[in-house]
């Protein structure tokens, strides 16, 4: 069963089309990353999954229940950490979380324990009595994360959870996300942090201007970037012969030639390294060292969102 099935989903705000005909399936038990530049429709999609917005057309199914028609049921499964923390200025972290724990189903006794435990884990405990307006930006974000940690929903949504938070909290969150997944939750993380996406997400979708650009595992996405891998060969021998040998191979895009070094851009560099070495050796070139570098997720992102790859 799909945890989330998005079918021909369109969301407009007046004249603005925030999401334009999105189709996407998120599997149960995976950590799914939603990437895309600012304004590409990530938050709009997530807020619709969490039943804040209604689809303009199309629908989204959460564990097979329609967000348009079965909101009450969908909400039993979903917990969301908002991109913009939600609280009134007079609220204090402890009260907020305690109330949250109760409304998601804990008894007041259980609530006290789970809130304390969670706050301690995120280093929030010392801030528990401050008023919301006194909290730093990162601390506010931690409160959002804490809500989902407390709730442990079947579908956990984090909308840019680590924007603004310190590196310690980032690691804590990543651990939490994996724990949740191990305990059976499905997790969706919207992020602009490529390192984070690569670190925790099993599959990634990249959105651009309200549309899905690509979908797959990090590895699959990288392989889709044409000429994305960088293969660097250090050699001894004639550089022109080395060049000719290399260019006889298929799929070599750009290349750069040095006196004892050749750098080529191609796909699936890792798989083709051996081929390159044997081609050079049969041309009488001695290969001293070979290095294969994948494109970064940044490159993938640039490629799918319209920006060009950095010049070699």
């Amino acid at each position, binding site marked *: 069963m799909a945890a989330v099935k998005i079918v021909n989903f369109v969301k407009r705000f007046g004249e603005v089309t925030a999401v334009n005909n999105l189709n996407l399936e998120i599997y149960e038990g995976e950590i799914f990353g939603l990437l895309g530049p600012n304004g590409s429709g990530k938050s709009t999609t997530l807020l619709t999954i969490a039943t804040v917005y209604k689809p303009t057309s199309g629908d989204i199914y959460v564990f097979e229940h329609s967000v348009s028609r079965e909101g009450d049921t969908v909400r*039993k499964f*979903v917990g969301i950490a908002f991109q913009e923390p*939600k609280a*009134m200025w*007079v609220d204090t972290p402890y009260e907020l979380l305690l109330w949250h724990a*109760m*409304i998601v189903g804990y008894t007041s006794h259980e609530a006290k324990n789970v809130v304390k435990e969670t706050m301690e884990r995120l280093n929030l405990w010392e801030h528990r009595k401050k008023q919301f307006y006194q909290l730093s930006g990162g601390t506010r974000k931690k409160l959002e994360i804490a809500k989902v940690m407390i709730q442990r929903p079947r579908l956990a949504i984090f909308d840019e959870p680590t924007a603004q938070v310190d590196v310690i909290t980032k690691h804590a969150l990543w651990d939490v996300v994996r724990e949740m997944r191990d305990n059976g939750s499905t997790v969706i993380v919207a992020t602009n942090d490529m390192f984070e996406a690569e670190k925790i997400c099993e599959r990634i979708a990249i959105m651009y201007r309200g549309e899905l650009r690509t979908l797959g595992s990090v590895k699959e996405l990288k392989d889709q970037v044409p000429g994305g891998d960088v293969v660097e060969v250090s050699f001894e021998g004639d550089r022109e012969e080395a060049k000719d040998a290399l260019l006889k191979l298929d799929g070599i895009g750009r290349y750069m030639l040095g006196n004892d070094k050749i750098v080529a851009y191609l796909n699936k560099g890792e798989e083709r390294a051996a081929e390159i070495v044997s081609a050079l050796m049969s041309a009488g070139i001695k290969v001293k060292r070979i290095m294969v570098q994948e494109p970064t997720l940044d490159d993938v992102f640039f490629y799918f969102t319209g920006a060009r790859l950095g010049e070699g």
Partner: protein
Amino acid sequence: MEVRDQVRGCLLIAYRDLLRFWKFKHWLFSQIVMNLADVVIFALVFNNIVNRQYIPDYVKFMSTGVLAVSVFASSFSIAREVGAEIRREVVQYLLTLPTSRNAVIAGRIIGGTLRGLIYQTAFIALNLAVVGIPSPKQSVIILYTSFMLAAAMSALAIAITTSTRDFNLQATFRALTYYMLFFFSNVFYPREVLALRFPGALATIVTHTPISLAAEVYRWSFGYSEYINPTALYELTLWAFTLLVTASLLYRRNISGR
């Protein structure tokens, strides 16, 4: 969703509004003190308005009137937060919780109602001390009146706040309604004075607003006045239900229209 979960959710939403209310208690108290100060100053300056012939005992007259004002002011305070939560999108949080929309809406209205009732208890005590002790039957009537008034005012506050998405307009409507209800009532002047001050139709309308109706019931129940409009309780009930339905519809439209 099970009924039990619904009720639990609804009560927790109301509880949240009570917790917040507690933080604003000083604000509210000063609000009422200010209102009362206005009245006293008014009375002193325009001495002829407070005429012995119409108001035999100004203290008792005011104490019973303030019973209605206290419920009104505290129940109405729910409007500010409902409005602020929509403006600052905190309401999105409520919309994602594992409760139904009905539970959210009912919870807010109950929250406002409870604010009114809880706040009023202090003023009930004042009336018991200053005005008189009601009979058991009158006590039940007082309770019923307070409940209806609080529900009506809570609903009115929410209805006004959610009637438009324009926040400036909201605030204007809210302030306007607040002061209209506050001043166009029999809380400060008895119906005889109202009849002298306002043209006929307006005087009639003023005596049939929820606050005036409630004040009249309180004045009778605590034994200050002999007179009671025989249909006051029915009218108040009608007000409450009309406003409850309106508020539910408007709030629902406001939070789920997108």
